[in-house]
């Protein structure tokens, strides 16, 4: 009601008048009342929906960006350790991309203003950049409780836009449209794409490295636990970082300190999407084929190999899944989305088909009735899937968010701390546009309904 203002609308009075309008009631008194009185306008005709950010999960790291959960602002309030349902996070700008790492979050906006990326949460390895403390200008905060600006060393800060952010265990990547990729945080295994320095101290570090070595502009970045993957315009995949499980896909199990093109079955293939979050990496080509490499201890790649690791990308031929459009992999599980909007899962853990299915080598279809498909809505399909370390998230085309998996410290956002064995709706006030999953928290980018 606070947004209302009076507007005596004469056209409405005529439209609602007794002449051209069939009054449903025979009461003459109410017919008169309809002609008098003001008509309120709460919303104009050209109203655009509001964009909001919702967060939930474990709050003590500061990853939710709400300081009063960790340090209550009133003496009577108690600190809130787990936020079990979505909570609104106020942001200055409209956030277009969000990423959740291991205890920290990055939010970015595609604005031309000077502040484009905000970070909150753990900052022991400067994964959120240098956050100068109030007391001492040489020290940086170890835990950032509020969304704070990440100082990117852009050459043209008022023209470049940030396209996407990605977060791993202790490092982050920021992708811009014209200035390439910036990496910050821990570089002990070369995951930031720069030469490893012995005994480097990462906390209170000012280093934000602009990555080199790509032959084409990068269109997508993803962070694994201690490695990074890059996808260029031509569909080529680059990797750097920790490779002990072969997750870099470079044909060896060593670390790599600069981005190198990935070969194997991906040589000459145009990739449309890459994904990783733990130690297993996957890619989808433009013609709907699925490739995987890295850790296979949890049956993620067991369809093509008995080994526990593959260090070079291999094609994963699955029948019955159709043309794959998206893939998401977490610590022990993988999910794919095909062009018909069906979700297939496999791996180890809570896969989403009840407590009895805890591991699978081949893709298992998650029944679409669990995503809201019924006789009333026969055409509901899933439009995006994401994986956290131990859970899944799916966004349908109707803007509903479904989560399932292990409820690590309340990261599912369903209001309880128990694990969820099949897809469950998260009550978010609005139309969910995108979601980012972390280890123990999640961020949702939501559009208001009207």
């Amino acid at each position, binding site marked *: 009601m606070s947004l209302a203002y009076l*507007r005596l609308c004469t056209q409405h009075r005529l439209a609602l008048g007794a002449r051209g309008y069939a009054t*449903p009631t025979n009461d003459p008194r109410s017919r008169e009342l*309809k002609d008098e009185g003001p008509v309120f306008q709460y919303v*104009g005709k050209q*109203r655009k929906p509001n964009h909001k950010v919702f967060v939930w999960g474990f709050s003590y790291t500061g990853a939710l960006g709400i300081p009063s959960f960790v340090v209550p602002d009133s003496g009577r309030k108690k600190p809130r350790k787990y936020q079990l349902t979505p909570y609104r996070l106020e942001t200055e700008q409209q956030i277009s991309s969000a990423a959740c790492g291991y205890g920290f979050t990055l939010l970015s906006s595609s604005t031309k203003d000077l502040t484009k990326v905000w970070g909150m949460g753990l900052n022991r390895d400067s994964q959120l950049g240098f956050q100068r403390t109030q007391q001492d200008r040489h020290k940086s905060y170890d835990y950032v409780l509020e969304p704070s600006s990440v100082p990117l060393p852009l050459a043209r800060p008022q023209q470049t836009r940030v396209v996407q952010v990605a977060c791993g265990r202790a490092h982050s990547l920021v992708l811009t449209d014209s200035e390439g990729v910036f990496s910050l945080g821990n570089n002990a295994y070369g995951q930031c794409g720069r030469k490893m320095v012995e005994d480097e101290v990462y906390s209170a570090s000012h280093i934000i490295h602009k990555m080199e070595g790509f032959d084409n502009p990068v269109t997508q970045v993803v962070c694994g636990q201690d490695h990074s993957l890059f996808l260029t315009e031509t569909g080529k995949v680059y990797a750097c970082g920790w490779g002990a499980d072969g997750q870099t896909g470079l044909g060896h199990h060593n670390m790599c300190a600069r981005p190198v093109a990935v070969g194997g079955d991906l040589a000459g293939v145009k990739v449309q999407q890459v994904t990783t979050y733990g130690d297993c990496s996957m890619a989808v080509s433009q013609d709907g084929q699925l490739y995987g490499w890295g850790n296979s201890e949890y049956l993620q790649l067991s369809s093509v190999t008995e080994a526990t690791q593959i260090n070079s990308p291999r094609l994963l031929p699955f029948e019955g899944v159709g043309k794959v459009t998206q893939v998401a992999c977490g610590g022990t599980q993988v999910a794919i989305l095909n062009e018909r909007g069906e979700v297939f899962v496999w791996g180890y853990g809570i896969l989403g088909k009840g407590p009895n299915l805890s591991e699978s080598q081949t893709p298992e279809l998650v029944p679409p009735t669990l995503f809201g498909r019924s006789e009333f809505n026969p055409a509901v399909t899933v439009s995006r899937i994401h994986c956290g370390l131990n859970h899944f998230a799916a966004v349908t085309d109707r803007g*509903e968010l479904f989560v399932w998996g292990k409820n690590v410290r309340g990261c599912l956002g369903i209001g309880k701390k*128990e694990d969820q*064995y099949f897809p469950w*709706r998260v009550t978010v006030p609005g139309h969910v546009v995108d979601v980012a999953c972390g280890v123990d928290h999640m961020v949702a980018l939501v559009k208001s309904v*009207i």
Partner: protein
Amino acid sequence: MTTPSVRVFHKLEGLFSIYKPPGVHWKLVRDTVETNLLKGINAAPPPGPRQRVQFLAEPTSVMAEGSSELTLSAASVPALAHHPLVSGPEFQHIGVGVGHRLDVFSSGVLVLGVGQANKALTDLYRSHVTRDYTLEGELGMATDNFSHTGRLIERTTYDHITRDKLERVLAMMQGSNQKALLTYSKVDMSTQEAYELAVKGELRPDGKSPPIMTGLRLLHFQPPHFTLEVQCLNETQRYLCRILHEVGLELRSTAVCKGVRRTRDGPFTIQHALTHQHWTSPDVIQAIRQYRSSRKAGKAKHTQPGKDTGTASQRQEMAEEAPVNRVYFVFVKLF
């Protein structure tokens, strides 16, 4: 002895549905139907009067002959104690029970049961069948009782509302209702059974639950008028008017309800509901027979012998031609 009236009454014992017009209290409707059925029952020809033997004294002309004996002659005389003009009509009251009630503002299918069928009616009433409604709404007004007959509280503009926005709001409401359906089903979600029931869509609240809409659809939209089709459980008509009000609020405008029409109550649809002219006993007898035969046909198509419980009740699924295809209900074998 079964009289023709009793035979007519036995034919009338069953469940049938009538169309309750708006603006009338359900009790008046029930009383009218009861009166009409009584008229039909009592219109049956009364049985022939019973004869009883009465010993009559001899006529005086014979007595005058001087005989001192009292002679009696037997005569068959009609017994008038049970004549309808003496004792009144045979049936003065029959038990007509009402299923889920409709308030004065609403109209639509109202299920009635006569005589022994009232037992089946209580089972139907207590079982968790879903009901279909068609709600007519109008944008731009808010009243105190959520319907157009109430006192006007506020008027708002509605030119920003498009069909797309309305459908998004309805999708959101349906999503929260689907979640309520699972939450109130009181099944442990960490079991494999819960997953299997959820996949089939059979996870429903069994006991008490707040009103839940299992289906919501926009039928017609022409600002300021729109029509919704709702399939719900445990609802009241006032709650449905309130739903329309809340749809208006979500759209940053206001809305009132102009009409609530029940199109289906469990297995009874509006196609077979009797209208005002047909609230007479021959039509009711035909409706009961039609319903029984359709149920038998339904049973023959969907027998599930494995699911028979110990009591005389059977869980059954019936395909409906109505907009929603599935209906679940518990039913007594008698009717």
